[in-house]
């Protein structure tokens, strides 16, 4: 059997009041970009923290390159790089110093540091700002610096927790380019979490969708999208019977939407819309707006969890995301 980069087997993490991760199993191949998707509080970060030996699982086994993370915590940490969701570059130091301290903590000999630090700063296009204080950096630069810190050690597995959260579209695109380059040039295994479906679609080879601690589904983005079946038509109406009427007409709906709003899956949306509108009008439903969407991962998510991705944020998670956003954009 080929050695896997990451193995998660029946992982359970129980907190006093919540089941953060509930019996999750998956593998990640070497050189793969694997994405864990889900709303805030789905258990993505907890899973990563268990893999990084930051917290102990309640039960289950996790392996990184065949090393049990519970038993070989130091070796595991030595192999991994981690870019947490929160801002983790130290603002009171220069960019160079941030990378220097990281390289030292990973036990890199002085001789190697001399070549490796400039190299990694160059890779992340931070060379000209190397000696500037980090608290003068923009959010995108800070993110790049954090990735530099994680990369200086040449990790075999890189964990990225929400790598583009709070970044503007341009900075986001730069980070995406970097993540791809990293895998293509160095064959680094990358495991990332995100709640941005577009990001997962662009970057990940395979995706696991998590919801309330469970792994709802797992597969390639294209496979997952094909499971949604086809185009999605969203109808908005002031008529509370809309949902029932659409169902009576024999269309397959996805959600138990609130009154007057419904999503239905069809195979050929463009040609179907006129007929649908006629049928609805005849049964006395006044349609206010209608939209057509080709399948995206967002719909996959909708199908497997029955909720849109924005729903289900806990108060603390929302506050944290906002706070980190404000910090990055300052």
């Amino acid at each position, binding site marked *: 059997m080929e050695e896997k980069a990451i193995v998660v087997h029946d992982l359970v993490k129980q907190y006093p009041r919540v089941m953060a991760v509930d019996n999750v199993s998956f593998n990640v191949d070497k050189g793969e970009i694997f994405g864990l998707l889900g709303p805030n509080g789905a258990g993505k970060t907890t899973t990563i923290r268990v893999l990084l030996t930051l917290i102990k699982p309640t039960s289950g086994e996790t392996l990184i390159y065949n090393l049990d993370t519970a038993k070989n915590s*130091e070796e595991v940490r030595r192999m991994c790089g981690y870019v947490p969701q929160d801002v983790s570059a130290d603002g009171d130091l220069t960019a160079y110093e941030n990378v220097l301290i990281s390289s030292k903590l990973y036990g890199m000999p002085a001789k190697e540091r001399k070549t490796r630090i400039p190299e990694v700063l160059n890779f992340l296009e931070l060379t000209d700002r190397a000696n500037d204080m980090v608290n003068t950096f923009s959010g995108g630069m800070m993110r790049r610096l954090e990735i530099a810190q994680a990369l200086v050690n040449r990790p075999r597995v890189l964990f990225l927790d929400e790598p583009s959260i709070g970044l503007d579209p341009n900075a986001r695109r730069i980070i995406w380019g970097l993540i791809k380059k990293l895998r293509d040039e160095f064959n680094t295994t990358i495991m990332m979490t995100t709640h941005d479906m577009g990001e997962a679609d662009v970057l990940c080879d395979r995706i696991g969708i998590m919801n309330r601690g469970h792994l709802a589904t797992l597969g390639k983005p294209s496979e997952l999208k094909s499971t949604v079946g086809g185009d999605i038509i969203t109808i908005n109406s002031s008529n509370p019977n809309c949902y029932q009427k659409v169902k009576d007409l024999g269309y397959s709906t996805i959600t138990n939407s609130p009154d007057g709003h419904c999503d239905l899956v069809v195979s050929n949306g463009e040609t179907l819309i006129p007929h649908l509108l006629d049928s609805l009008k005849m049964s006395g439903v006044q349609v206010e707006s209608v939209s057509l969407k080709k399948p995206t991962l967002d719909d996959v998510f909708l199908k497997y969890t029955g909720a849109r991705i924005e729903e289900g944020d806990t108060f603390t998670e929302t506050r944290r995301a906002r706070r980190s956003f404000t910090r990055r954009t300052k």
Partner: protein
Amino acid sequence: MRALKAIRKYFSNALIIAELELRKIRHDQTQIWVRMVQPALWLAIYGLTMSKLGMNTFIPAGLTYLQFMTPGVLAQSALFVAIFFGINVVWERDLGLLNKLLSTPASRSAIILGKALSAGVRGIFQAIAVIILALILRVHLIMNPLSIIGVFFIIILVSMCFSCVSMAIASLVKTRERMMGFGQVMTMPLFFASSAIYPLSTMPTWIKPIAYINPLTYVVEAMRDLLATGNLHTLPLDCLVIAAATVLFLVLASLGLKRMIS
């Protein structure tokens, strides 16, 4: 051999963490200068006033009140800074820096030890300021190199000890505001229930037992022997007590670090 290597790695990681903190101080030295103000006030205003009020007569044989009090101010200045050290750790936890530190191969207690060491070095800067001020005030101190080195050593230990106390508390209270409160609540009792500004013999009887279990008392006594009396009989015992307290709180703070991130 393997154990030796592990120990070396442990201390080198602690030194790297300390280096991280010291580099921060180098970029922003304001805090060092500001922190010199308080001990200066104690010595120059409180100390001089008390001398004039005739405190000299209560002091054990041969010492002036300022001689008696300078080691007390040294200990107090280290205590006051170290006891709030936990706020930094809470802050780093909130920022996410702590999570990243913990994901490196460095062990938890190496991280705590490193941070404690950096608190020790901060303490040194203040100690230098207090000693210089004392000399300006013409306080007669024993200024041979060995006693100065001894004083620095004890300042580092006491700063480490109380910064570990502070980090251990931080792991329980977890917010900066509460940490401020706890710091305030702890400084004065520790300070007053020690021999920093008056001799143990003048204390009400009921405080004495507290003074005897207060590590600060031993710190003050050790430095007083080194700088003022020159009588080093009890120095080894004092050092032992301080070192034992430091190790104890280092262990507690290391255990607490796990609670900090969950």
